[in-house]
């Protein structure tokens, strides 16, 4: 294997990892607040189309990313109102959000078929970003650096800030948090909106960086991988980064299996690999920690204060 091949492979892996890392970081915060939002896939698609649409209208990918975050966050509010105000079932409501986002993004995307958007310029000087070797560090879209930077930010927020402490308290014991006087609903609204915004940016990575074009259902189930990733990481931001890159490598296998001499197995085997490995990884994690691990105690349960 030549150096060029390795560099190309790393660039591919980073590209495949970034959207699931973003979406999973958002969902981590949501779940830490005690809410299970299965609508990640739908929010990613809403982010993908809103980011794309905003870029087409403004010719500015930075505003596009804002649009993606807004699209994801707005669609997450549908879910938030239902589960927080009406105590609807979180699993079913999240599924509804995914179905809704898939349909609505297709409808919104009709008028954007065939468009190509301006892509991000590099934030590093061209001598670094375009260097055949150094591009492995400097040659990515700003979203990639944002995603990686958000890992320590989220970890620090959850662990060391007062707001993060309140958020974790709401997720671990909503009734106690409520009786101390914290706004359980307020915290959960904020967490769900953050999760939506992050999923939206993750989705926009598909339509604004990878292709950069809009296509129906272009996130291809990555939202579900992101959900699995949160469990896999044991609800810890640091492990999320490791897990995301592990899955990124698995997804790259499909693309590189032939080149690496694995063509004795059908391509479908490699395409199924990330999903099979997700199941295996979740099983291994559960085997190690039978009690359900670090899952927030109130995860997925409705908040029913007596007053």
């Amino acid at each position, binding site marked *: 294997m030549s150096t060029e091949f390795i560099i190309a492979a790393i660039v591919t892996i980073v590209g495949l990892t970034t959207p699931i890392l973003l979406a999973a970081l958002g969902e981590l915060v949501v779940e830490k607040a005690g809410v299970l939002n299965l609508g990640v896939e739908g929010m990613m698609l809403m982010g993908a189309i809103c980011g794309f649409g905003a870029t087409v209208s403004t010719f500015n990918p930075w505003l596009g990313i804002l649009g993606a975050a807004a699209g994801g966050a707005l669609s997450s509010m*549908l879910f938030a109102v239902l589960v927080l105000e009406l105590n609807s*079932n979180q699993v079913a409501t999240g599924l*509804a959000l995914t179905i809704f986002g898939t349909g609505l993004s297709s*409808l919104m995307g009709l008028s954007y078929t065939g468009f190509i958007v301006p892509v991000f310029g590099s934030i590093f000087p061209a001598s670094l970003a375009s260097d055949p070797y150094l591009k492995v560090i400097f040659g990515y879209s700003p979203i990639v650096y944002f995603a990686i930077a958000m890992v320590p930010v989220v970890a620090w927020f959850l662990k060391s800030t007062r707001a993060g402490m309140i958020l974790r308290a709401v997720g671990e014991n909503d009734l106690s948090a409520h009786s101390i006087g914290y706004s359980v609903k307020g915290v959960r609204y904020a967490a769900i909106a953050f999760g939506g915004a992050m999923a939206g940016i993750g989705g926009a990575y598909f339509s604004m960086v990878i292709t950069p074009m809009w296509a*129906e259902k272009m996130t291809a189930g990555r939202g*579900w991988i992101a959900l699995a990733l949160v469990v896999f990481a044991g609800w810890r931001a640091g492990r999320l980064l490791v897990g995301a890159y592990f899955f990124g490598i698995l997804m790259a296998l499909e693309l590189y299996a032939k080149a690496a001499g694995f063509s004795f197995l059908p391509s479908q085997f490699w395409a*199924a690999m990330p999903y099979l490995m997700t199941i295996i990884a*979740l099983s291994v994690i*559960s085997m190690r920690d039978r009690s359900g691990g670090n899952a927030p105690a109130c995860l997925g349960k409705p908040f029913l204060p007596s007053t």
Partner: protein
Amino acid sequence: MRIKLEKRPEPSTLMAFATPIASVLLTMAIGVIVFDALGIKGEKAVIDIFLTPLLSSYKWQDVAVKAAPLIIIALGLSIGNRAQVWNIGAEGQYIIGALAAAGVGIAAGGAGGGIIITLMILAGILGGTFWAVFPAFLKTRLNVNEILTSLMLTYVALQVLGYLVGGPWKDPNGRNFPATAPLHADQTLPILFPSTTVHLGVAIAIVLPFVFWLIMSRSVFGFQIRVVGSAPDAARHGGFDAKQTIWLSLLIGGGMAGLAGALEFAGSLKAINLGFPSGYGFTAIIVSFLGRLNPIGCLIAGIVLAVTYVGGQVAQTTVHIPNSTAGIFQAMMLFFILASDILIRYRVRFIGSPKVSALPAAGE
């Protein structure tokens, strides 16, 4: 004025019936508004999607054929949903069921007739059940989240399908197109009414809800499922085995999805290509909730959802809206039905309004 929710002593039966109907009507009303806002003739679009399929006897066939798999899958999923066991991988179980039926058809060679068709249907049920064994095993043994495993297996099923129809099962006379050879005429399901597309699967979809209703309302098993879902602690004290419930929920869900796949293959499509997965497994989740997890409810809700599919195609040609629009309507119905769940268990009271002075406000 303040809105207060008051817990009902008993869940409201009236609300359980009224809210699904209200959800469909609200979805239609919002549809008109949204389409008008998008510059599409809203009234026409909504009428085409929800009513036109019901007014034409020709479209009725389409509705019946599309409703059949939705109803059958939803019946199985309702059991799991009731017990709070979440199988969202019905789509994968549906695919594997159809592939198993196709495998029997291919293995039979030129043979056909009632026995082969019966074997194909049984293979479909077994195939779907087999695909649900993994989430059930992992959930009961290792406490792995069944939502994620059942869904991941749907993506695996898609690859199995791609491999089989593009490789070993590819039609040699198919111009290199990835699809199985079409079934022989005597391997397909009988047609119920001459010169229509209404096949045996439709009859099965009409009979099964009543069978399920009998089982759920009259048997210990039905009681167990209902108790486990609504009062898990009571179920534990009552000696109902939670693991057994998980197994049964997932296996029945898988078996029904597999049955639906086999019937759709042997009754409607007669060959499997990459376009075979149509999302019925996901839409059936909506059917299950819109039918209030009740077998007869699933029958009605399955027809409603099938109407939106057929109507979506009508609207595609008449008002030029994309096929995906039907999906938005289906999701809206699910949102409304979930939002209105609260009305079954709670009563809405308006407090403090001068018009409702019969209720003294607290603290006065």
